[in-house]
């Protein structure tokens, strides 16, 4: 077996005295698509945000995109630089898009290339246009986010993450803030991405996407991974009572 893209060992996270992640273990292989499902408040988003250190894990080890960083209460300058470098290899898509409202779609997409990677602007524009075209929004290249629908905004956000040419993509409930009729266009982009072999970790409530695109589905509840299985098995024969109950509620 090849080296995993993501490996997490015994990850813990507390918010004050609230124990949100209670020892998570996970391995994700390159090109694998993993969906994490579970009730709200189960720690799914927190777990995802720990992977690129937007949330500081309290205990455990994280190995991602070739970087190995243990949880620590304080990171020195060298480690902080390593975390920033890691983030350029790990794309993230947020529930609320978080596009930069003072920049056009294209400027949003090339911002990381120009500012973080120090790429010359014309070169970045070429890459930016490629990825805008990829998410089907080349005609919106000079529009500000406020003039885009939610679905279009999220697709620009995906292009922004892809432009950095990451090794793995993290999706934090990418369709939860969308009107129902706009969910499809975003899922379509994500499915294409999965087909192309992008390594993806997706926190989602879209069971359809999980069924189609996921290689593996994980059910998370109360800070632990309760059950993991290929989607057919997870949805047809869930082993645990909690999984069964959750699936009964949402399907």
């Amino acid at each position, binding site marked *: 077996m090849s080296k995993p893209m993501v490996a997490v060992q015994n990850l813990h996270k507390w918010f004050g005295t609230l124990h949100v992640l209670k020892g998570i273990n996970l391995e994700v292989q390159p090109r694998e698509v993993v969906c994490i499902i579970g009730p709200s408040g189960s720690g799914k988003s927190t777990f995802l945000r720990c992977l690129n250190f*937007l949330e500081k894990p309290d205990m455990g080890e994280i190995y991602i995109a070739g970087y190995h960083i243990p949880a620590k209460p304080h990171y020195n300058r060298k480690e902080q630089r390593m975390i*920033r470098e890691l*983030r350029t290899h790990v794309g993230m898509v947020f529930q609320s*898009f*978080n*596009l930069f409202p*003072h920049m056009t779609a294209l400027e949003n997409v090339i*911002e990381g290339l120009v500012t973080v990677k120090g790429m010359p602007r014309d070169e970045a524009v070429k890459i930016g246009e490629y990825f805008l075209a990829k998410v089907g929004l080349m005609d919106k290249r000079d529009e500000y986010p406020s*003039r885009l629908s939610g679905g279009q905004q999220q697709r620009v956000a995906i292009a922004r*993450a892809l432009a950095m040419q990451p090794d793995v993509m993290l999706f934090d409930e990418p369709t939860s803030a969308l009107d129902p009729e706009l969910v499809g266009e975003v899922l379509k982009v994500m499915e294409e991405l999965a087909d192309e072999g992008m390594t993806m970790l997706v926190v989602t409530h879209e069971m359809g996407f999980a069924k189609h695109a996921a290689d593996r589905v994980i059910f998370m509840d109360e800070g632990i991974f309760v059950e993991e299985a290929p989607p057919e098995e997870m949805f047809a024969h869930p082993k645990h009572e909690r999984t069964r109950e959750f699936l009964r509620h949402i399907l």
Partner: protein
Amino acid sequence: MTTSTTPLAPPQATGFWGWWHSTTGRRVRFGVIYAIILAILFLFLRQLGLDVQFQLKWLPYIAKGIPVTLLVCIGSILLATLLALLGALGRISRNPIFNSIATFYVSIIRGTPLIVQIFFIYLGLPQVGQNLGPPWDKWLTLPAIASGILALGINYGAYMTEIFRAGIQSIPHGQREAALALGMTYGQMMRRIILPQALKVIIPPTGNEFIAMLKDSALVSFMGAQEMFWRAQKIGRQKFRSMETLLVAAALYWIMTMIFESIQRRIEARLGQSERQMVTH
């Protein structure tokens, strides 16, 4: 009986009341009433028996203080902006050292009178310099205008720190996360993402501070900076015509304020436009 027809527009009052309530004549109505108020003020001043010839004679001399006033204000607002930015970054910092320094700065400056701070810098600093000995005695003895800029800049910087802090904190947390997730440093995030957006929140109240500063700059006359108020006071005392010269100075301050208010309105209108273009949430 014929059917009653519905009028195309609601019934309107005519005559004086029609004019009074008309929405189209709003500007004219405002102008007329404003002119009446000014006329009353003018009549009142006439009653004081002011020497208008004297005022006109000394107007150029007093107006020569305008560049000094502007220099002090522009210098001070630049210094204040720099201090406010540093102060705001300190106030939102989790680093206890930066945070404490910024909090201390805001607290002590807002907790003491501006005039005391001005005298402290003009009279107190040279004394500190004397005690420290050369070369400090030279460095800490500042000319009047430099002292004025320093004093007003430090003072307004403290008030503007809170404006800047509020502006920065008004930007949704997601912006910060999106910037960090791209691998940005704190500085890149502030420069490229947070501050450009915060500026829209910061600029209007900063304009207000500048307009307030135009008037507070009169205080630097206490240090002998030859700005408008200093000149007005000097001539007024000399010739025993203080009412005349002070009125001239007051009118000049008022006119400058109105000019900057109109500039401010224009800037805000432009900000409002780009706001409509960019607002997302």
